[in-house]
Every structure is written in structure tokens, then in C-alpha cells.
């Protein structure tokens, strides 16, 4: 059975290879091949899953050793896979959602002449992501880690002719590289500490070394997670990443890749558990990000960027949960899965809206779309309810548990973290309601827009909103099902908890206030948030042009000035640095050499003048030389 594991990766990898190398001949059928292979991967996953269910909880982990990858004296890296419950969860999420999005993309990318390549990239992403979650050692995980980064780069920049897309892609890769640096340092630390970087030996040996080393490793892992999962301070790339086609945003930048950081932390639980200081930092990062993302999400008028803020914020929840240690791991993953459903659904919905609106992304140019695209409206609406944590829907279960666990951290920290999580829930409700209202309700501002634009002489085609084709709506419907039922399914009878417990371990947290009170509070803030949003965007018309807004709003629109900081300090500073180095290289390093050459040349020119053509001066030179030689010889004797 374990031999199937490699096939999970091999199927999409094959797809990527065939589609990218295959050439024009595959232009007409390539997308189907890609989808099929993705589906095959999902099928293999299901087979493995049913097989796993048939075993005892402790014996479910499978292991496959493919070949020895880098055998160097004192350093062994293998290409080997490990499929346990945690990996299985991800495999199903990735291949499942991935397949849906493949299907969706068939319709979404129909008119793009480079569709074959798009599917190639998607397959490449699936392969890399599966490798990431299936690797049995950190180095191989690193390969998957960078692989998804590459796929993300390629897909964000898919429309390369747009400079903004190319820039965004590069930015995403670069920011991720900073995180990757953390991961590689972490691996190097593991190697020097444990002599290996395979999951098993490392995680078992955490007791054998000091907390300092472990804290260092954990912090480096966190840096990596921050990069990949767009956590503060490495979050800046995610908003720009929305330049990519919307299915990409749904799959990579919402459901799967960005959650890799959470996977990494949960996978390395044993290290974090032994490094409480690092765990504290993890929770802080999570808490800060969940507020940051939420605030940014409130201010964005671009529907995808608003959703991106939301993604950041939701992953903040997961990181927060993961930072809580064994009381939070399971919930982090559970929220990850449910989030995968509803966020993917939301993005697909957004894509569907854009598809019907001439690729317009500004929500201020939407409005009242519910009657034109009913399926989109319903599925989007269900996703919306799930994300804000409407009782009974997926998000409610998973988020509630995280808030509970945050309180259960205990002490002041617990209170602070819990309150932040609650506040985040309120803001989530606010901004998601805002998105919902601006898009599907209210007056049809896009009609007015046409008049304004023609008045201003702008080239604006009035959109004809329409529902998307089946290939797009069916995935949305399936995801909506997930958004609605997954949470309940997981939570009732603690199914998910029992499933994952053998891998991540679990402790029951004991919040200082009763679980019921937490739930009550969650629901209360939810209502508050929704109400506030309705007051601002539902009751009165939305201006077609964004008002100036408060200082906070303006800052939030610019990602809380984080980009400006990056620009001024890193980009400008870097430019100055490189420019001055280029100058120095020329004038100083090269100049020293050229200067030496020039001074020898100058010396030559001066010595040359001694050769003045007069015999008598030559004779003087000889006479002087003779005198010198005689004197020196005599002097030698004297000395």
C-alpha cells in the first residue's frame, strides 16, 4: 500500500512535465489531462485513506523509502515519504480542493491562449505541495516548500505581460525566500544538533538537547512559516499575489499553500513544545497577524484583496492555535481544513463575479448582483456565513475551538490572546458582511459607472453580469457543501480530534471561563460585527468612489503602511547600497588595480626621461654606476 504514496506525487508531476514540455499539440486537450491527473492523485489519496481507516490508530502511519538522495559522508538525505494522519488530511485537502479548482479553471481560463501552461503550473503546484506534506525529512520538505513557492511565482505572474503581475510574483518569491532562509538555517541547526533532519529522529531526540538550541530552531521554523503563510512581518506579498488568476488565489493563496506554515509548526510540534519561549512568539505572531489581516480586509475595495486580508487573518488564527501547543494543534489543523473549503469557495465565488463583470475587481463598481448570478450568490453566501462563524456552519466550530483554546492558555496571556481572537472574530464579521453587501446587495453601481466613465472619456464597457458556466459553478457548490457541513462533521464526537491525536497529541485546555460563555461571546461579537457593517454599507448607499476615510482606513488601504516601510527601507535602501557598491567596485577595488598599473606607467614615463639621447649623460650614468659598485663592494667588506 505504501508504494501508492509516490504515485500521489507522481501523477501531477507527470502532468506538469507533459503539459509544460509537450508543446502546442496539447493545447486543446492539455487541461483535461491536467484535471484527470489531479483527480487520479485524489483517487489514490482516497484509496490510501480508506486503507488507513481500516487500521488501528497507532499503526496508520505509512512509510516509503524511494532512494537515497544525497549520500555524503556524515550527511544522509533520502527521498522518502511518510503518510500519517496529518499528512493524509492535507493530501485529501490538497488533491480534493485542487481537483475542484482544476475543474473550475477549465471554464475560467477557457479564453486564455496559454491555458495548457496554466494547467501545467497547477499540476506542478499539486506535486510540490504533496511533496511538502509527504516528505519524511525537513530537507525534502524544503524541496516541496520551494516547489510550491515556484509554482506560486509562476501562477501569480501568469499574466506576465502585466508589469504589476510580474512584480507581484517576484515580490512573493523574494519575501518567501527570506522565510526559506529561516528554514534552511533551521535544518542546518538540526543537523549540527541531532546529526540528522529526518522527522522521526529529530522529533524524538528533542529531549536530548538544551532549550536554547530548540528555541533557535523553533524560531527559524517560525520565520519560514511566516514567509509561506504570510504572517507578520513577512505578510506583504499576499495582497499583491492577487494579481494571479483567481483559481490560483483560491487554491494556493487561500486553501493550501499559505497554510504550509501551519503544517510546519504542527509537524514540528515536539520542538515547539520543548521551547515555550518560541511558542509565545508564535502566538504573538498569530495574534498580531489575525488583527492585521482583519483590519486590512476592512479597508480594501478590491474584492480579492479584501479576501486576501481575510486569509491572512484566518491563518493568523491557525498560527495562534498552533502556538498554543498540544491544546491547539488539532484545532489549528481543523480550522485549516474548514478554511480551505470556505475560503476556496469564496475566492471561486469572487472569480465567478469577476468573470461576469469583465474582470472588474473593485467592489464599489459592483452591487445588487444577487439576481444576476444566483448560484454564485448562494455559494458565496454560505461561505460567508461559514467564515464569520455562523453557528452550525464549519467556521463556527473550528474558530470557536481556537478562541476557547486561546483563553485556555491561562494567565494574562490567555486573556489577551482570547480577547484578540474574539476581537478578530468581530472584525471578520464586519469585513465579510461588507464584502457581501457591496457585492450582492444595494444598488447596481456598475450601471452608473458606465455613465461616469463615458463622461470622463474613459474606456469602460458596461458589464453584462451573468452566471458562470457549469464547470465553474459545480466546484463552487461542492465547496459550499464543505463550508456548511465539514465543521460539524469534524466536531461531533470529536472525530477530527481522535483522528489527529496520535500524530499531534492533544491536551484538553481548561479556559478560565466556561466553554459555553466563550461560545456566547463569539456569537455576540459576530452579531455586533454584522450589525456594524450593515449600518455602514447596508442601510445607506455605497459611494462609487472611495471616500477619503479616517487615518486608520487610509493606512489600512496601504496595508498599514507596511509596504511603504518596505519600499523606503528595503527597496530604496537596497538600491542605494547596490549603487554605491557598484561605484566602489569600480573606483576602489578596480581602481586600486588600475591605479597600480597607472603608477607603474607613470614611473616608466619618468624613468624614460633619463634616456635623454646625450652620450655624455649615459657616460655619467656609467661612471656613477661604476662608482656605486666600487663603493658598495668596499662597503660590503667594511661591514
Amino acid at each position, binding site marked *: 500500500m505504501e508504494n501508492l504514496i509516490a504515485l500521489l506525487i507522481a501523477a501531477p508531476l507527470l502532468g506538469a512535465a507533459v503539459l509544460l514540455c509537450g508543446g502546442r499539440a496539447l493545447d486543446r486537450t492539455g487541461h483535461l489531462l491536467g484535471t484527470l491527473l489531479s483527480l487520479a492523485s485524489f483517487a489514490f489519496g482516497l484509496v490510501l485513506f480508506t486503507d488507513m481507516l481500516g487500521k488501528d490508530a497507532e499503526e496508520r502511519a505509512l512509510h516509503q523509502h524511494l532512494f537515497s538522495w544525497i549520500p555524503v559522508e556524515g550527511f544522509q538525505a533520502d527521498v522518502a515519504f511518510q503518510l500519517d494522519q496529518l499528512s493524509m488530511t492535507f493530501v485529501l485537502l490538497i488533491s480534493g480542493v485542487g481537483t475542484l479548482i482544476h475543474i473550475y479553471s477549465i471554464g475560467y481560463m477557457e479564453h486564455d491562449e496559454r491555458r495548457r501552461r496554466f494547467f501545467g503550473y497547477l499540476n506542478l503546484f499539486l506535486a510540490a505541495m504533496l511533496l511538502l506534506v509527504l516528505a519524511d525529512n525537513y530537507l525534502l520538505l524544503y524541496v516541496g516548500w520551494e516547489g510550491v513557492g515556484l509554482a506560486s511565482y509562476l501562477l501569480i505572474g501568469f499574466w506576465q505581460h502585466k508589469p504589476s503581475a510580474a512584480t507581484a510574483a517576484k515580490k512573493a518569491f523574494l519575501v518567501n525566500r527570506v522565510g526559506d532562509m529561516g528554514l534552511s538555517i533551521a535544518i542546518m541547526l538540526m543537523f549540527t544538533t541531532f546529526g540528522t533532519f529526518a522527522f522521526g529522529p529529530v522529533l524524538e531526540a528533542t529531549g536530548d538537547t538544551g532549550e536554547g538550541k530548540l528555541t533557535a530552531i523553533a524560531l527559524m521554523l517560525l520565520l519560514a512559516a511566516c514567509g509561506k503563510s504570510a504572517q507578520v512581518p513577512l505578510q506583504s506579498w499576499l495582497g499583491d499575489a492577487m494579481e494571479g488568476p483567481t483559481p490560483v488565489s483560491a487554491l494556493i493563496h487561500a486553501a493550501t499553500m499559505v497554510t504550509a506554515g501551519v503544517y510546519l509548526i504542527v509537524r514540528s510540534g515536539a520542538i515547539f513544545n520543548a521551547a515555550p519561549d518560541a511558542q509565545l512568539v508564535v502566538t504573538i505572531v498569530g495574534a498580531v497577524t489575525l488583527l492585521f489581516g482583519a483590519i486590512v480586509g476592512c479597508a480594501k475595495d478590491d474584492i480579492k484583496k479584501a479576501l486576501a486580508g481575510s486569509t491572512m487573518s484566518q491563518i493568523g488564527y491557525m498560527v495562534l492555535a498552533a502556538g498554543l501547543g498540544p491544546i491547539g494543534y488539532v484545532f489549528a489543523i481543523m480550522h485549516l481544513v474548514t478554511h480551505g473549503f470556505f475560503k476556496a469557495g469564496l475566492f471561486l465565488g469572487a472569480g465567478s463575479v469577476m468573470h461576469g463583470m469583465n474582470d472588474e475587481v473593485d467592489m464599489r463598481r459592483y452591487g445588487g448582483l444577487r439576481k444576476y448570478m444566483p448560484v454564485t450568490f448562494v455559494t458565496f453566501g454560505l461561505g460567508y456565513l461559514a467564515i464569520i462563524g455562523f453557528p452550525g456552519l464549519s467556521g463556527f466550530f473550528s474558530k470557536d475551538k481556537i478562541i476557547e483554546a486561546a483563553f485556555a492558555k491561562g494567565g494574562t496571556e490567555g486573556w489577551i490572546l482570547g480577547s484578540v481572537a474574539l476581537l478578530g472574530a468581530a472584525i471578520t464579521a464586519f469585513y465579510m458582511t461588507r464584502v457581501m453587501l457591496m457585492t450582492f446587495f444595494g444598488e447596481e453601481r456598475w450601471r452608473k459607472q458606465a455613465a461616469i466613465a463615458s463622461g470622463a472619456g474613459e474606456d469602460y464597457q458596461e458589464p453584462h453580469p451573468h452566471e458562470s458556466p457549469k464547470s465553474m459553478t459545480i466546484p463552487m457548490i461542492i465547496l459550499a457543501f464543505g463550508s456548511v457541513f465539514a465543521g460539524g462533521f469534524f466536531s461531533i464526537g470529536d472525530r477530527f480530534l481522535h483522528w489527529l491525536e496520535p500524530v499531534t497529541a492533544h491536551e484538553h485546555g481548561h479556559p478560565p471561563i466556561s466553554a459555553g460563555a466563550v461560545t456566547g461571546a463569539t456569537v455576540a461579537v459576530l452579531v455586533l460585527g454584522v450589525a456594524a457593517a450593515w449600518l455602514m454599507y447596508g442601510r445607506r448607499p455605497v459611494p462609487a468612489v472611495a471616500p477619503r476615510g479616517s487615518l486608520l482606513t487610509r493606512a489600512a488601504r496601504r496595508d498599514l503602511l507596511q509596504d511603504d516601510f518596505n519600499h523606503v527601507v528595503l527597496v530604496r535602501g537596497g538600491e542605494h547600497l547596490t549603487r554605491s557598491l557598484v561605484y566602489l567596485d569600480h573606483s576602489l577595488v578596480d581602481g586600486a588595480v588600475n591605479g597600480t598599473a597607472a603608477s607603474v606607467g607613470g614611473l616608466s614615463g619618468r624613468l*624614460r*626621461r633619463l*634616456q*635623454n*639621447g*646625450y*652620450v*655624455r649623460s649615459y*657616460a*655619467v650614468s656609467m*661612471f656613477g654606476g661604476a662608482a656605486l659598485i666600487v663603493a658598495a663592494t668596499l662597503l660590503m667588506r667594511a661591514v
Partner: protein
Amino acid sequence: MNPVNYLYLAALLFSIGATGVLIRRNAIVVFMCVELMLNACNLAFVAFSRLHGNLDGQIIAFFTMVVAAAEVVVGLAIIVSLFRSRHSASVDDASLMKL
């Protein structure tokens, strides 16, 4: 008379000759200074010959004279041809090649 004094004289003549080479412009005079130096050497040879009581030095002096004569032949030929081309025997005028 102490033969060493002849040596001093030889050294003096040699120095006078050398100085002449360094300061005189006329090629002929310069060449004569060189001859003076050769003759200073001759004096030294003869003096040493006397000092050591063997005849080697005196014989060498004869050879030197022959060599000097040969040099005169060659030297004058060159200097005369230079003079005829340039109408000047100044060595300072002959400085086409330099640097």
C-alpha cells in the same frame, strides 16, 4: 721613487680622462680622453710590473697600445663619417634617438 706614487699618478690620469669624457662635447676630444684613460692603465701596468718584478705588466702595456691604435682607426672612421654627415663633431648634436 716609490712605485706607489706612479699608481697615484695613474689613478689621477684615469680620473682626468674620465672627467674629460663626461664634460667635453667634441667627439674627438672625448675619444682622446678615453685614450688618456687607457694610457693611465698602461702606467699602472708598468708600475705594477716594476713592483712585482715581473714583466707581464709591461707586455700588457704593449698590447694596450695596439688595442688603442685599433680603436683609433675604428673610432676616427666613425667620428669622421658622423662629422661629414652633420658638419659637427659635437656629441650633443647626435641625439636623434632618446626616450
